[in-house]
Structure formats: C-alpha cells, structure tokens
C-alpha cells in the first residue's frame, strides 16, 4: 500500500558528495527520468576545479542541482528544497544555500569523528540540534547499501560504491518516479560487468523500497509534467548541443566538418562529442596545442570543409593570431569559446562571461569578426548553427561564446527536423568571376558579392582557378600583395563593412514588454538569459514594470539595438564580468546603461537579480 502523494509545482534538488561518490551520474539519471516524464527542467553541475581533492574535504565536494517543474522554468533554481549530503563536507559546503525548512538527506555512516574533523565540525551537526530549522533525514546510506548487497559477489568497496544508486532510488520514490529508465541505462552501461550491474540494480531498488517502507518518510511528492510545445524532446547539455549544432550545419551545407581542437575545461566535451560523430562524417583532430587546433581548422576551411575549433578563454588567447589570419583570408571559420573564470588559469570549472571583449578586440590591427552567444544549454544548438551560417555566408571567422554554466548544464531540447532548418550555401566558385584588361577570364579572389561583401570561396582542386592568398594586405579585387596606402585604407574599411553588414541578415532585437509601459529595460546576453527571465518574472509579480531583451548577436548588434536602448528611461545590463557588454553599448550608442555585475564563478541567482530590478524601477519612479 502506497504512502500518500502530495502535488508540487516544482522542486529543486541538490545531490552533493565527494568527487568519487558519483553525484554527477546520479544527477544526470534523475534529470533523464524527469525529462522523459515530461517536466521542464534545468540543471547546474558544480564540480571541483581540476584535480581530485583529498577525500572528505570541502574542496573535494561535487554537486549536481536540478530544478524540475510542471511549468516553464528558466534556471536551475536559487536555493535547493532538498539536499542529499553524502558526507559532512557536502553538508557544510552546501548548507548556506538552503532555505529554512529545506529537506536534508544525509548519510550518517560518513559522519564519523574523523570525517567531521576534516571539515572542522567539532560536533556532529546531525546530532547537535544545529539543523533544527531543516527537515533532516539521517540514514545509514552506506550501510543500508552494503546490507542490501550482502549476497553480491563483489568486494565491500564495490558495494559501498553503489550507495549513489541507493540514494537515487530513494529520491525516485520520493518524487514518484519509476526506476525503469535508470534500470535500462545501468544495463547498457554495465552490460559487460554482470556483478556490478546486479549490485547497482539491487541498490537502486533497495533505495526505492526504503522510501516505500521506512517510517522516516511519511509522504511522497509528485511534480506533474509541464506543458510543452508539441514535438520530440531529449535532455541535452550545452556542450552536446553545440556539437550537434556544428555537425548539423555542416550537413545542411553539404560540407565536411573538421574540428581542430586541444582539450581544455570546460570545452573538452565538444571535442569528445564530435569525436563520436564519425558516422556522419565528422573529422576531429586533437592537435598539439590551441594554435595548431585553429590552424587545422583554417586549413580545412581553405580546402573546402567547415573548419571549427573549440576552446576556453586561455586557449582563445593563443588562437588570436590565427583568427587574425582568417580575417584577412576571409574564409569561413567557427571558433567556440566556452568561457570560464579568468584571468589566466583562473577558475577552470566555473562560469563567467568575461571573454566578450577578448573576442571583440583580441587581435592586432583592425580585425573584425562576428560574435554570437548562446543563451541556454539547448540554445547552443541554434547558436552554433547560426555561427556556421554567418561564417559560410560571409566568409568570416565567427566566435561563438558559451560558458561553463551552459556547457555542463542541461535542459529539455525539442529536436529539430532537418527539414525545418535553413539550408547553408557554400557556393564554391567554379568559374572565373572577372576579366583581365585583355579580356581573358580570371579569378579575382577578392571581388566581393555586392550584397554580403563576401569574397568567393574557391577551393583547391578547382581547375583553372589556382591562386595564392596570405596574411599580408591584399589588393582589392585581385587579392595580390599590396602595400599601397589607399588600398589598405579601403580594405580595412571593407572588412569592417562586411562584418557590420551581417546585421542585415539577423533578426531585430526582440523586446519582452507585455504591457508596453515599462520604463526600465533589462538587457542581457549569453547564459544570463534564464536567470534574467526568471528575475523579470519575479519582479513583475511584485508589480515592477520592466521590459526585457536578450542579445544573441554581439557583433554586429541587431540593427534596432540603439532604438530599443533609447526607448527606455533606464537600461540595466546584468553581466558576469565587470561590464563588457555595457562598455560596447555605451561606446556605440552613447546610452548611459547601468551595469549590474557579479564575478563569482556562478550564475546569477534570479532572486538577487529580481531585487536589483525592483530597485531600479523604484529608483526611476522616485
């Protein structure tokens, strides 16, 4: 006989444990189950920077937060309603984020004096009453797991390792989810190790049954499916979506995708994902460094493939000279920068938006490139596709900015059909496009399309169109080396005009101003999309009149940007940097935008942002 079920409209759960406790996997599985169930969701993995820290320490804590809801949501949530703490370090590191009344499920087996000492707990917080404002479920997760596996033919250590499945089972019960999709997952993962599979399945079931039978849990909950646009969905991380977007764009352009890349956190998974797409013709080269990575990509583009390179901030710094070459060569090239905390090595596993100005200006000379940014994990697909479109159409390097938050976070993604996606047209030159003064036909490699100002993409192997290009200034039309003052001036301005002209092909900035009477505009870019949207919704609930817009194209800006900015009395630009977009807007439009910045390696909390927004509207009405 089942326990009673209580309906919730949303819940935020955080799994936290030692790096070795498998929290990312646990979170991923719960996410999948919620996704398949039809919740809207958003996730926020948070793992230690780089190296494995000593077991049981704060530095070693790895966590995974997910937000599931029966309605459309934008963020992984500010404050968890449930914390699963696999050890004292996990409790200590995360307690500060919990609102009063939150549920804590803790593994008492790990709260030994030694482990408590490691994180500076003088007394056991599970026992000393200090958690009285929370709803604590203290249980021996480890020992319960080991007991459940008493008969399994594996070592005690291996049994203990299954405790994350016990925890997952318990949580699945708690939120009224079936275990079968996780069972299928485990079966395919551990198919070759039957004892391990059996143990994991048993632990999962045991956790589920524990919820059902233990008196510690009186009710369980249900979060209904969210209404979503019709279609087939999957859950996707930003890095995976980026990889899919690149591969799909190449497919739609009839181009071979060639990725040249060097591993770097948090971008490596794009390489990993693309390396696993050979069956659709994707080629990946793990290069000796970032410079070689972009070199390979540029060489591939020159040869008629869609050349792509992926990296994070320090890697982009190394690639800049080659991006400059691509600017002069005017070849398609996509550079993905998954931004992380900086400067220098900085905070490799944390998120930040502080590479915008590097993308914009980090090259010698006047060296314009197109820049676009993705706004949510699933949106990385469209952003990557759009980056490829611009690169191919305009023969230009495009820098796509995502960040650590998008890269590892996930959300439901409505799968596009190939038919609904636009075509990409490489339009390789096959014939001479110009005539010499003596009337013979010739290729003029820098004769431009009158609309896009793109030059021809003329690839090796095309008979009769042999030509040479390079990084020295080129003569207008002929592309020959040219050192003349007037030609240089002309070419510098032409390259700029070409990139500026991309604005003609992008959708205008769309403003969300439901009543049309807002005086404050909140303008963001990139991964702050979710937090800003949530914050604006919150602020509106509190009565604030506020409009919202989000920039996908950072260079060039949509043509109506200035107009939008000028139609509000106050423009607030929240950024996870010291005000980089604000600087560009101020310089270009001379509008006194207000920066709201935080550089904490973490996404904005929407509740904090909502306060900022409300304050901004109030200030104005003063």
């Amino acid at each position: 006989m089942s326990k009673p079920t209580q309906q919730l409209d949303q819940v935020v759960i955080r799994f936290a444990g030692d790096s070795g406790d498998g929290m990312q996997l646990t979170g991923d599985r719960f996410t999948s189950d919620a996704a398949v169930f039809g919740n809207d969701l958003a996730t926020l993995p948070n793992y230690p920077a780089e190296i494995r820290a000593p077991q049981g320490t704060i530095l070693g804590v790895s966590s995974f937060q997910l937000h599931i809801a029966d309605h459309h949501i934008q963020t992984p949530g500010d404050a968890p309603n449930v914390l699963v703490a696999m050890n004292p370090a996990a409790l200590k590191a995360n307690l500060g984020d919990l609102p009063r009344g939150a549920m804590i499920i803790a593994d008492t087996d790990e709260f030994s004096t030694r482990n408590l000492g490691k994180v500076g707990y003088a007394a056991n917080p599970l026992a000393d009453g200090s958690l009285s404002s929370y709803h604590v479920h203290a249980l021996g997760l480890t020992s319960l797991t080991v007991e459940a596996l008493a008969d399994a033919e594996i070592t005690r250590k291996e049994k203990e390792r299954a405790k994350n499945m016990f925890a997952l089972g318990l949580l699945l019960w708690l939120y009224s989810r079936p275990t079968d999709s996780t069972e299928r997952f485990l079966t395919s993962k551990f198919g070759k190790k039957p004892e391990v599979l059996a143990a994991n399945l048993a632990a999962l079931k045991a956790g589920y049954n524990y919820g059902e039978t233990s008196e510690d849990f009186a009710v369980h909950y249900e979060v209904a499916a969210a209404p979503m646009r019709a279609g087939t969905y999957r859950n996707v991380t930003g890095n995976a979506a980026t990889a899919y977007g690149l591969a799909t764009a190449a497919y739609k352009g009839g181009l071979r995708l060639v990725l040249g890349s060097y591993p770097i956190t948090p971008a490596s998974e794009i390489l990993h994902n693309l390396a696993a797409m050979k069956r659709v013709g994707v080629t990946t080269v793990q290069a000796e460094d970032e410079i070689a990575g972009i070199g390979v990509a540029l060489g591939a583009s020159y040869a008629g493939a869609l050349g792509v390179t992926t990296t994070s901030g320090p890697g982009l710094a190394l690639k800049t000279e080659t991006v400059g070459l691509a600017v002069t060569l005017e070849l398609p090239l996509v550079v993905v920068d998954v931004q992380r905390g900086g400067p220098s090595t900085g905070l490799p596993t944390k998120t930040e938006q502080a590479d915008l100005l590097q993308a914009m200006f980090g090259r010698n000379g006047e060296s314009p490139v197109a820049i676009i940014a993705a706004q949510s994990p699933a949106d990385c697909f469209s952003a990557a596709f759009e980056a490829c479109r611009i690169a191919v159409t305009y023969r230009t390097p495009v820098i796509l900015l995502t960040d650590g938050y998008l890269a590892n976070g996930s959300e439901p993604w409505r799968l596009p059909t190939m038919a609904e996606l636009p075509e990409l047209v490489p339009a390789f030159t096959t014939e001479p496009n110009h005539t010499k003064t003596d009337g013979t036909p010739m290729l003029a490699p820098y004769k431009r399309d009158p609309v896009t100002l793109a030059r021809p993409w003329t690839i090796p192997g095309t008979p009769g169109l042999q030509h040479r290009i390079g990084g020295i200034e080129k003569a207008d039309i002929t592309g020959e080396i040219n050192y003349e003052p007037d030609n240089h001036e002309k070419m510098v301005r032409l390259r700029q005009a070409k990139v500026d002209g991309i604005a003609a092909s992008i959708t205008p900035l769309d403003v969300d101003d439901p009543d049309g009477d807002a005086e404050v505009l909140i303008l963001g870019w990139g991964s702050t999309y979710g937090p800003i949207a949530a914050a604006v919704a919150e602020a509106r609930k509190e009565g604030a009149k506020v409009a919202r817009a989000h920039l996908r194209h950072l260079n060039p800006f949509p043509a109506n940007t200035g107009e939008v900015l000028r139609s509000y009395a106050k423009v607030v630009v929240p950024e996870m940097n010291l005000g980089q977009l604000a600087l560009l807007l101020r310089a270009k439009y001379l509008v006194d935008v207000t920066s709201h910045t935080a550089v904490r390696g973490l996404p904005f909390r929407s509740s904090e942002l909502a306060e900022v927004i409300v304050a901004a509207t109030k200030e104005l009405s003063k």
Partner: protein
Amino acid sequence: MTLTDIGMPHGLDLVPRLPEGAAPLNRKSFTSDQEVRWCPGCGDYAILSAVQSFLPELGVAPENVVVVSGIGCSSRFPYYVDTYGMHSIHGRAPAIATGVAVARPDLSVWVATGDGDALSIGGNHLIHAMRRNVNLKILLFNNEIYGLTKGQYSPTSPTGTVTKSTPTGSVDRPFNPVSLALGSEATFVARTMDSDRKHFTEVLRAAAAHRGTALIEILQNCPIFNDGAYDVLKDRTSAQSRILWLEAGEEVTVGAEKETVAVWSGGSGINLIPRSEAEPALILHHDPAAADPSQAFALSRLDDPALSHIAMGIFRQVSAPAYDDGVRAQVDAARSAAGPVDDAAMEKLLAGGDTWTVGES
C-alpha cells in the same frame, strides 16, 4: 608521365592523375604570373626553379597541388608556383597544411618553410607533423639565418654567430634538423642543396613517392645576411672531401676515390677512417629503409659546424601509416557501418538515447 613512372606507388594515392593523353605539363604550368622577389643571387631562386621543373613529373594537375608556407623570405615560395597556395603566419604552416591534408585526400600538399619558421617559432608543429606522419612534403630552406627580418641568428646558426642580435656571438648550440627529425619519429628525412639541381630533384622524387611526412632540409645560401655559409660544400674539390653522398645499399664513403669510409665505432658513433684501415665487412652500408633509425641518426651526427663532413641524401625512408589516412579510415569505417548520411541519420544522431514526445495539446 604517370605515377609509376617515377616509382611513386603511394605518395600520391588518392590524388587524381592527369588522364592518359592529356597535354603534358611543363615548368611553365607551375609558374605563376607573380614577379619573383628575392635578392639577386639568393639560393631560393634555384630551389624554386628545381621544384617548378620537378612538379610536372607528378602527373598531377596544378589545381590539385597546394603549397602552404609560413613567414620568411623562403615562405614567399607559394606566390611563385601556379598552384593553390597560402602564405600563412609565422611557424604555423605544418598545422594549417595538416588541416588541408586531413580534409582533402585528393590534394598533393607541400609546405615551404625556413630554418626560423620551421625550427624556431614553428618547432612544435613541425615535430608533431613528423610524429603523426601527415601526408606533407616539407621543404625546409636552411640558410642558418633569419633573412626576412634582416639577419638575426637562427636555431641552425653555429655557436658564435655574430649578428645584430648577437653582437658578441650566439651562445646556444644549433639544432641539427636531420637529428631532430629522426628524434621526432620522421619517416622520411633528407638533406640536399639549393645549387645541386640533380640531387635535389632525386630527393624531391623520392619525397613525392613517400606516403606520410617527408622532410627535406635544403642548404640554402643567403648572399645578403649569411653569404657563403655552405661555400665549402659548393666548391667541387672541397666538397669531395666533405660530403658523404648517401645511397641506399651502398657503402657510406667520402672522397674522390671513396677513400674514406664510415664504420661503426662502439660508443662513439660513426667514425670516418681510411679505407685501408677498415675491415671491409665493417664498412657501413646505407639503409634508409631500416626500421630502426639509429644508423640514420648516427649519420646525421657526422655533421659539424665547420662542415668538415656532412652526409647528404635520404637518411630515412620507411613506410608507416599516415595520420590523415588513419583519420579518414576511421571516419569511412564509421560511415559505411552506419549507412548513408541523410536527414533520418542526422535526426537519429540528434535524438541520442532517451527522448520523449509531447503531442499537440
């Protein structure tokens, strides 16, 4: 002329060859309309001419040849060859050319580079290209100087070289490009000279026939900033007593009468001794195809800054899988296992594992 004519069973695999009966190519077919801009007397002219004369032998149309270079006097090379070409940035040509080779099996890809471009700023890309064995033919113009920037010492300049940046002489020891290449797992390594068209052409022929990376070090005179660096090798008589011409299967010797021979001498590498003193059985025979590069390496060590001896020719030429072939094979295998890449295949790819469907509501 076809592939087999020049004994090129694999170097140009997958590159379309001119059809039988096509108009024969000649040097002019590979000469661009650009004015050549090197100093009078520069060794680069001879190199250009040798290459332009050789390329028709490939039996490959000019549009299927790509030359990528870095920056330096030598890196102006692509402008003068009427193929596809890219004059890229300093040191990066091997990386860019790797991208070309990986993307396009149907092109013959060449790299033109200098001792500064390849061994100073570009050292890493060079050694990795050789390790990977990418299908690239690399022409390394070694003039032991930075020509383009007006004469600073380079990583191949002998210790003590006085230049504007080393007014009291350079302190560091030079690389030996052949030793470095062999230490980097190169499968084809040769050395030749700008002025020796015949030898140069033979080396080019063998390089073109090679599948994988072929590194050709070309001793090149820069009359402006390092004139005469190789004079002792160009003067016929002094050359005779200095150059060991490497020939597969032949004894390694030097001298007009081959009177000095190379023998292995225990721990101290190869010694050159009078033939009269050598036990005939111990005289080294050159074997570029030896799986183990140790003897080739030892031959590279005969070289010294004073050029009292130096080996020329093909040090190593062994067959090994080429990187780009391997990369392609993996993609091809995956593709043919998975079937055609069509809308359905792409949609299946995007769907991944778990999906769910929401109906019209």
